[in-house]
């Protein structure tokens, strides 16, 4: 019933008592666009086409502010979602971001979470990794259900959580996905022809992503503060999505056409987070690169240039570093 229009304000679906989301879009756009301008081939897609500008986005500060400096004493741990074990024609999530951040001096790695395990089990695994590491100042970056695993970690494992300075959700399944609710959605998530081992494993994780389950969890588990929370959401026109996501996006359009192929844009923001922006891309392309034709359909990916996900992650990290420095300075 709703149109795909950008003439809407940023919005979130929240339970009572949820802390309000802060608007960090103007500053993030400034950082992202400045970084992107330094990239080779930066003109392939204008920066403004890569981040949606919704009706209420504030104008950037004038004059523009300089880019913040990196803080390589931070450890960055990526937490993949369901793509982690079963990447359909995709590179592993965050594959290119890891070496980029390492070159910038960060201790960076991808957490070995398990796509088929429930979030609380992944949270335990993450907590163990954090406690066993020597890292004292950690930034956790979660894609899709990886963001949920992180939130479960923070609530259930306070010792590990105390070392986490910041959390970034990237197209996070914060309120779950409507596709996880009913058989109709599950059929879209796991169409016939997928790798059986992967689809069975992923199906086992679906109950964790039911919208009612996640929203109830959020209401019953206020998130600890610190750490600081940041969110990047994603949505795109259906025609610009990876082919396997288009049927999912069409189904989700019943609820809202502004979705990324897994969830509407208002389901992807952590309560109390600083909203960094809405990436104009789909749920897969924000985290992983296309590698080969899709096994099930052999469908082409289309002509849309790849989304500069490494730049997006670096820009988010710069904003996080800036915000943490300001907090520590009492600003």
């Amino acid at each position: 019933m709703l149109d795909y229009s950008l003439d809407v304000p940023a919005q979130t679906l929240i339970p009572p008592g949820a802390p309000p989301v802060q608007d960090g879009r103007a500053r993030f756009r400034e950082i992202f666009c400045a970084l992107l301008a330094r990239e080779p081939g930066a003109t392939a897609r204008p920066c403004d086409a890569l981040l949606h500008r919704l009706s209420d986005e504030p104008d950037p500060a004038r004059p523009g502010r300089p880019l913040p400096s990196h803080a390589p004493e931070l450890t960055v741990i990526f937490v993949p979602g369901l793509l982690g074990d079963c990447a359909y024609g995709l590179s592993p999530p965050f594959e290119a971001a890891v070496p980029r951040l390492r070159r910038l001096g960060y201790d960076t790695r991808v957490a070995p979470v398990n796509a088929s395990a429930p979030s609380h089990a992944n949270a335990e695994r993450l907590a163990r990794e954090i406690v066993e590491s020597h890292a004292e100042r950690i930034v956790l970056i979660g894609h899709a259900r990886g963001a949920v695993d992180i939130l479960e970690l923070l609530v259930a494992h306070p010792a590990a959580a105390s070392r986490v300075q910041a959390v970034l959700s990237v197209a996070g399944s914060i309120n779950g996905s409507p596709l996880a609710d009913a058989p109709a959605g599950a059929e879209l998530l796991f169409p016939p022809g997928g790798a059986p081992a992967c689809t069975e494993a992923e199906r086992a994780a679906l109950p964790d992503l039911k919208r009612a389950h996640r929203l109830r969890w959020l209401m019953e588990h206020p998130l600890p503060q610190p750490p600081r929370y940041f969110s990047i959401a994603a949505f795109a026109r259906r025609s610009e999505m990876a082919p396997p996501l288009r049927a999912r996006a069409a189904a989700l359009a019943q609820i809202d056409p502004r979705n990324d192929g897994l969830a509407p844009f208002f389901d992807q923001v952590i309560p109390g987070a600083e909203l960094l922006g809405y990436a104009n891309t789909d749920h897969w392309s924000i985290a992983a690169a296309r590698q080969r034709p899709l096994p099930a359909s052999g469908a082409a990916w289309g002509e849309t240039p790849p989304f500069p996900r490494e730049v997006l992650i670096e820009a988010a990290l710069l904003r996080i570093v800036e915000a943490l420095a300001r907090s520590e300075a009492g600003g």
Partner: protein
Amino acid sequence: MSLLSVPLLITLAGLTVGLTSCATPLLVYEASDMPPLQLAVVGQPSVQDGRARFREIFCELAAREGLPGGDCEKLLVRLAAEPKAREQAPLPTHDPRLRILLVPGGFAECFKDAPLFPEGLPRLRAAGYSVSTIPVSGRSSSAFNAWRIAVAVARMPLPPEDRLVLLGYSKGVTDILEFLVQYPRLAARVHAVVSVAGSVNGSPLASRFTALYEATDDWALRNCPPGDRNVAVELGRELRLNWLARHQLPGHIRYFSLGTIAPEAEVARAMMLTDGSLHYVDPLRDGQLLFYDQLVPGSELLGYVRADHWAVALPLQEHWHILATNPAGTHFPRGLLLEAIMLHMSEALADST
């Protein structure tokens, strides 16, 4: 009672079915599994949970009137994570210093023999309250109606010890919010705003049907003053959310929200097809609005009553014996509800100055 809007409603509903009948709903859950939700514009305050105390007041009042406890439990939908009442507090006493102005919803002016809360008004007056209804334009925008509310508020005698409560139903709530930001000096007189089934975020239905409404309203509602004819546009989700993003509600006012949710069999027949359209978006709705579109930012959530969008406030079942009744044959005790709301207001505003 004018029935002229019925052909329009049926036309709209028919179109709805035609446009949605191929799809399968994605969201399937029980009300008891889902917590209350608010679709909130970023930066707005979230709602606070006042369900436990309101249920206590509503059910205690119901018990005094001989309504079985089980019935009371059903009349307020128990969504997930509803807190338990801390301790059994006594029923508050009415505070007749509260002066109540009711603001009806869209098209109310077109149905003069179906006034807002007709069973509730005598009860409130018997309890000592001053209560009256503001005659807003049924087919006009909220900006248009804000003026009428401003006139009513300006004319209301308000001794220093009295407190002014604006209670809006459906689009009447957006009319009130518009008044509050357009007339801040008069808004200073208001102590509390109560939203009942408020179209705070509008409805996804509006986007689909505005053009059809505008093409047919002069015929279908020809006995009803046209006003500025913008009532349907005003209920668009995008327009309402953009409005909320651009305006900050006055901070000195206490806000309260009461939502409505009706199972499919308890939705008036005339709304069943529009309700069918909404059920592709979410299982929890009242025939015209989704449950998460009904909450005023920063308000105290009183609960969700089990009634469709009309039955919660309007005596349409008494006039439209087929179209406004539902297959399950349920009715909602509107008088009881309004009195429970005012008892809650009396308690909540007791300490306000």
